[in-house]
């Protein structure tokens, strides 16, 4: 099929201009400025800069605490992405059944996405905080958030829960595109529900899964700051101090602009790297209709 084209020289650019202005002002300029600052040490008040070469990078990569943050961020992301996708796919499958009142169930399961991470953190705080958390009260176990290992698990749980709605919406839409006749044909051929799911449904969901894989990775690396600030402040003893939280502290609390800029660049490269890797490996297994 031949694609139709508009014959205009200027108009498309004029129409694109607003978008570009916004991108340049809010995205490209700050990003480039951040990359530049990663090569400087910056006065905490006046912003006076002094060129420092790779000083910031050398220092963060020889700091065992930063390397620790690096490691737990990776674990955190892995857990959030795997659990998040598995749960939301399961829930979306259930929500795709025809049951009375399904509309309401759907809304209830999607609403966590409407909350800001800080509010989600506050909700989990009601459940788990050591002074008067509901779960602490009923189980008699109070140290959910004050012991490193359980605090880490709760942060993962909260991050997964917070993003469920987003994933479910996409999966529900994708499930509508799974052709019924293919499923029926498979049933007639004697395929059980498990076989039907893995051979047909899962294959049809693969583009969405891939998209969500990329989005959830970005989410886990960049957006869980609010949860951590409310629930643990990176503690106990740095066990939930993931990269984005360390970055926040270095810039907004410790006023170390140079370090924070270097850390943003590292985080940026990391996520770009992971995404490229995902495109090169996983996307080959994706089946587009």
């Amino acid at each position: 099929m031949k694609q139709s084209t508009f014959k205009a020289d200027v108009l498309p650019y004029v129409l694109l201009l607003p978008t570009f202005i916004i991108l340049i002002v809010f995205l490209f300029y700050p990003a480039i400025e951040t990359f530049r600052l990663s090569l400087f040490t910056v006065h905490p008040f006046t912003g006076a800069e002094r060129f420092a070469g790779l000083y910031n990078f050398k220092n963060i990569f020889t700091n065992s605490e930063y390397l620790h943050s690096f490691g737990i961020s990776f674990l955190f992301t892995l857990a959030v992405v795997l659990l998040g996708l598995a749960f939301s796919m399961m829930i979306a499958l259930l929500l795709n059944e025809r049951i009375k009142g399904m509309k309401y169930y759907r809304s209830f399961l999607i609403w966590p996405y409407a909350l800001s991470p800080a509010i989600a953190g506050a909700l989990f705080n009601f459940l788990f905080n050591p002074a008067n958390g509901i779960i602490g009260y009923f189980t008699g176990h109070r140290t959910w958030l004050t012991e490193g290992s359980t605090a880490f698990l709760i942060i993962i749980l909260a991050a997964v829960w917070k993003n469920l709605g987003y994933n479910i919406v996409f999966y529900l839409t994708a499930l509508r595109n799974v052709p019924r006749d293919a499923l029926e044909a498979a049933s007639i051929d004697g395929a059980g529900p498990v076989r039907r799911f893995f051979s047909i449904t899962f294959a049809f969901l693969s583009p969405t899964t891939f998209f969500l894989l990329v989005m959830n990775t970005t989410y886990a690396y960049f957006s869980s700051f609010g949860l951590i600030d409310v629930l643990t402040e990176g503690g106990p003893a740095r066990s939930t101090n993931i990269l984005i939280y360390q970055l926040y502290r270095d810039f907004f609390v410790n006023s170390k602009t140079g370090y924070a800029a270097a850390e943003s660049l590292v985080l940026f490269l990391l996520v770009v790297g992971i995404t490229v890797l995902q495109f090169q490996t996983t996307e080959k297994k994706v089946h587009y209709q």
Partner: protein
Amino acid sequence: MKRIVILLLAVTMLVPALFAAGKEEEKAVKVDADAPVTIEFWHAMSGTRIELIQGIVDEFMKKNPNITVKVQYTGSYNDTLNKVKSAVKAGNAPQVFQSYDVGTLGLIYSGIITPVDDAAKEFNLPIKWDDFFTPVQSYYKYQGKHYSMPFNSSTPLIYYNKTLFKKAGLDPENPPKTYADIRKAAVALKKAGIKTPVTWNLHSWYFEQMICLQDAPFVNNDNGRGKELPTKALINGEAGKKVLDWWVGMEKDGLFLDVGPGWSNHRAAFVSGEVAMVMSSSSDVNLLTKGLKEKGWEMGTGYIPRPEGAKGGVAIGGGSLWMTNTGTPEQQLAAIKLIEYISSDEPQIKWHKGTGYFPVRKTAMDKLKTAGWFEENPNYLTAFNQLLDSPESLNTAGALLGVFPEARSIIQSAIQECYAGKSVQQALDESAAKIDAAMAEWNTVIKQ
């Protein structure tokens, strides 16, 4: 000939200096104290305190009809400081802002502020520092000069539940004073059925105060107040070790409930009767008294505990008001008038009654005493007495370091590491080394 040339040179050198001197004088004369002027005041006090501050400023504007003050709540201390920094860079800084105690050394070296004493001298508006409580004004004095105006001052206090004390067979009128006392009381309370009788939030402030109580320094170079910037953290000495041995020891023996960081968990645990003793800011008196009253319990207050025989005292905490070095002379004049007014008796009394922070002046305190305020509210007196009983020294004036916020998170992590089993000495040694590195870096960057 040579002489004439030299003479000419000398004259040409002198002339600009004369003009400059003339200009200086012109500037001082030129300030029109009655001209209409608008200034901005950014603060970090949330909730009902927003209206309280607005009320105080309204009163000020009534007294100074030519001055308009735009008051704005700009988030936490930290947020406010960040906003001020970016506003200075963007050229629209407020003339007055509030900052926390631990931001003091940074602001002194920031290059964005005018010291209060300098402004007072320039506009010939002397401030009666003798009226202020010594610990309050000595905190904000650096090498003989006051840099900011004390505003909201507090110290930590011990709060205890008298009703639960009675139940455990403890004397409710005699609060525990030493580390050993607290431990003994905790053991008795535990026997009486309170699972974990003591708590306070994970905050380095208590650790710092308990070092002051032993009259020990927090950092070198006169506790950060000397000619040279501090370079070495002294937290891993005898004093720091004593504090954590006791604190962490109680946690390990199940007498202390670890409620994590933040300011709500320990209050909640105290008000619900989960614990019978907490340490918290003296500005919590109102809140905690009310909380216990609702349950029909009585609350007592005491000095924060010290090891037997320690001779130090508490250092002041809280915040103060700073002037930026931006704006016209008229605005600067209005700014210093505003902060001087806020620190005066009437506003301070209003502020104290509304929040629980101390009035910063002795004169305000005398007025409260005469009015019988402390007979009705004896718990407010504890905080005052604790402050007045503190001897004056560089250690009790409070430490100054540029990386205080970072040092605090390092110390808080160290305490959590101790809970998880690390030895106190090792945790403190490691923290001291990290703070040293941070200070060394800051000391270079701040001069660039």
